[in-house]
C-alpha cells in the first residue's frame, strides 16, 4: 500500500465553487520521486494546497489517504503531524519570528502531536546540531538563523529555507510546489541536491513543476502530465525530456512564453 494516496480527487475554490482539480488518482511512497508537470493555470498549485489542507480549497469529491488513514477533512497541522510537508512556491513572511525560533516551535509542535498531545520538546543541543548540519549542507549562511522568517529574503533564500525546514521537520512525503522557479543555476543545484539527499527509505517526494530543469538534478521515477485539472499521461523520466523538447502542445496547450 502506498503511503500517500489520492483517489479521484476533485478540488474547487471554497468561495466561488469553481472546480480546478477534476479527478486525480496518484500514489506516492517513500523512496519514490514523482514529478507532476503541467503548464501554467493547469491547477498544479491548487493540487498542492489541497493536499496540505488549505482552507481556501474544498475537496468536493474523492479522498486523500495517508498511511491508509483518511485525512481529507483534516487541518494542515494534523496532516503535518502525520508526516506531510509542502514546500511553498511563495512562502509567507512572519515578521519578528526568527528562523530558529520558528523551527523549534514547529519541531516541538510536531513532537507534541506525535506524543499524544503531551509536550516533548527537542533537547537544545540536538536541535542546534541538526540545524547547523542542515544549514551547512544547504549552504545557508549562519546569520540567516537569526533573521525573521522570509522577511526581506530573496527568492533563492526563501526556497533554500523551505528546504531547510523540510530537512529539519523530516516529513515522510514532501510536496514541492514550483521549487525551481526563481532560482539561478547554483541555487537550483544546492536546493535540488538537498531534496535528493532526503529522498530515501524515510521520504518520498512529489515535485510539482512547469519545467524539466529541476528534474536534471532530481531524477523522477514517475512523471505525470497534468493539464486542466487532470493527469493526461504518465510515464518514466523519458516523458519529462519529451515535454522539454516538445512543450505541452501535444496535450492541446498553446505555446507559452518562457517564464523568468
Amino acid at each position, binding site marked *: 500500500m502506498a503511503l500517500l494516496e489520492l483517489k479521484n480527487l476533485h478540488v474547487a475554490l471554497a468561495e466561488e465553487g469553481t472546480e480546478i482539480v477534476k479527478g486525480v488518482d496518484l500514489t506516492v511512497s517513500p523512496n519514490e520521486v514523482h514529478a507532476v508537470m503541467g503548464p501554467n493555470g493547469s491547477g498544479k498549485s491548487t493540487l498542492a494546497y489541497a493536499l496540505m489542507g488549505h482552507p481556501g480549497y474544498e475537496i468536493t469529491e474523492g479522498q486523500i489517504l495517508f498511511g491508509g488513514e483518511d485525512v481529507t477533512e483534516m487541518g494542515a497541522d494534523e496532516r503535518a503531524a502525520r508526516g506531510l510537508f*509542502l514546500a511553498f512556491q511563495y512562502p509567507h513572511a512572519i515578521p519578528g*519570528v526568527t528562523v530558529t525560533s520558528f523551527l523549534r516551535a514547529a519541531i516541538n509542535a510536531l513532537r507534541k502531536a506525535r506524543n499524544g498531545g503531551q509536550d516533548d520538546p527537542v533537547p537544545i543541543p540536538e536541535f542546534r546540531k541538526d540545524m547547523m548540519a542542515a544549514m551547512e549542507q544547504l549552504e545557508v549562511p549562519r546569520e540567516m538563523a537569526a533573521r525573521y522568517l522570509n522577511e526581506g529574503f530573496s527568492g533563492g533564500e526563501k526556497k533554500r529555507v523551505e528546504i531547510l525546514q523540510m530537512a529539519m521537520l523530516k516529513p515522510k512525503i514532501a510536496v514541492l510546489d514550483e521549487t525551481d522557479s526563481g532560482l539561478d543555476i547554483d541555487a537550483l543545484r544546492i536546493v535540488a541536491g538537498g531534496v535528493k539527499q532526503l529522498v530515501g527509505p524515510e521520504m518520498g517526494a512529489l515535485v510539482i513543476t512547469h519545467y524539466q530543469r529541476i528534474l536534471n538534478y532530481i531524477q523522477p521515477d514517475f512523471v505525470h502530465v497534468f493539464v486542466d485539472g487532470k493527469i493526461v499521461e504518465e510515464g518514466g523520466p523519458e516523458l519529462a525530456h519529451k515535454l522539454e523538447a516538445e512543450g505541452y502542445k501535444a496535450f492541446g496547450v498553446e505555446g507559452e512564453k518562457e517564464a523568468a
Partner: protein
Amino acid sequence: MSQTETETEVVRGIGSDYAIKYGFHVPEDYFFKSGRGLSHELIDAISSHKDEPAWMRKSRHKALDYFLARPLPKWGGNVAEIDFDNIYYYIRPTEKQAKTWEDLPADIKDTWDKLGIPEAEKKYLAGVGAQYESEVVYHKLREDLEKQGVLFLDMDSGLREHEDIVKKYFGKIIPANDNKFAALNTAVWSGGSFIYVPPGVKIEMPLQAYFRINAENMGQFERTLIIVDEGAYVHYVEGCTAPIYTTDSLHSAVVEIIVNKGGRCRYTTIQNWSTNVFNLVTKRAVAYEDATMEWVDGNLGSKLTMKYPAIWLMGERAHGEVLSIAFAGKGQHQDAGGKAVHAAPNTTSVITSKSISKDGGRAGYRGLLEVAKGATGSKSKVVCDALILDDASRSDTYPYIRIDENNVDIGHEATVSKIGEEQLFYLMSRGLSEAEASAMIVSGFVEPITKELPLEYAVELNRLIQLQMEGSVG
C-alpha cells in the same frame, strides 16, 4: 540563543489563566480603611495618618478643589462610568513597613509569593518596593547601592526623610491642575516610589515596584518621583495586578521624572490590571542636555487605560523614546500612546507603538509630537502599527503633530493589518495549531519592543500576551 529558546517556550507553554495566577483575593484585615467617597475630611484623615508637613496637606486640599471643579474628559474612553462615590480612597493595610518579607502578615506575604516578587528580588533586582492597597508594605534596596548614595524609598518615606528634594520637584513636572486625574492623585496620593541616583552612578540591575490592589472598589493613587543626576542611569520597572471583581476599581497614578545632563532613565511598565480596573495615569519626564529618557509601556490589563507617557526634551541633544504595546481583549479599551515635546535644538525622539485588538477589544495610539520654535535640527520618528485579530475588534490612531520650526526632520508611519489566512496556513502546514500560529504571529508583531526588555520581562510580557491570546483574562 537563549532569547529564542525562551520565546519558543513562551509560545508553546500556554495554559494558565488570570483568575488563578493573579485574580485571587485574600481577606481584609487592615490597620485602617477609609469610608467610600471623596471629601476634605478624607484628605485630613490621610494627611494625619501620614503625619505630613502642612504644605503637603494644603497642596492636597487645593488639588481636591481642582478635581471637583474640572469636568470629566470627553475624549479617550468612557470615564463617565466611574462611580467616584463608591471608591475607597485610602486603605492602610499594615501599621509599619516591613524590612523582610517574613515580617508581613501571612495573607499579604502569601500574595507576594504567588506573584513571585521575593524570588525575582533574589535573582535579578537591585531593589524592590511592594505596594498593597495604599501603602508600600515592603521596601528594600541593595546595600552597595545605598552606600553609593542611591535613594530608593516609598514616596511617603521620601517626603519624611528628604522633604527638601520632594518639595523642590513635587508637582513641578505635572502640576496638580494638569488634568482631572492628576488633580485627583495629588489630592489623595499614597505610596509610589522616590528615587534619586547620584551623579555618575549607573545601576545595572533594575529597581522594581509592584502594585497590588486586593480590596473591592479600591482606589490606588501612587505617586512617583525619579531624579537621575548627571551621567547616572537607572532602569525602573513596575508591574501591577488585581483580583477580578464585578464592580469597578480605580488606579490613577502620577509619575514625574527628571533626567539631568548626560543621564539616562528607562521606565518599564507591565500593566496587567484585572478587567474591572480603570487605569488613568499621567506620566511625564523632562530630559536635559545629552540626557536620554525611555518609556517602555506595556498595557495588557484593565477595563480602560488612558495613558500617554510624555518626554519634554529641554536640553540640547536630549533623546527620548516611547515603546508602547497595547493589547485589548474582550471588554477592554486601551487608549495608549506617547508624547514628545522638542524644546531644544538637535533633540531626537522615537515613538513606536504596537497595538493588538481581539474579541471586540479596542486598542489605539494617541500621541503628540511637538517641535517648539528654536528647536532646530530636531529629528523625530513616529511608527504606529496595529494588528486586528477579528472583525469585532477595533483600532484607532490619533497622531497629533505641531511643528513650529522649519529645520526639522519628522517621519510618521502607520500600518493596520489583520492576521491573514495565508500566514496561518503557512505556519499550520508546519504543524502548529491555529492558536499556536496566531500566538506566534502576535509575538512576532511585538518583538521589536520585547527585544528591548531584559529577558525576564520579555518572557513575562510574551507570556501575558499568550494569555490574552487564549482569551482567558477577565
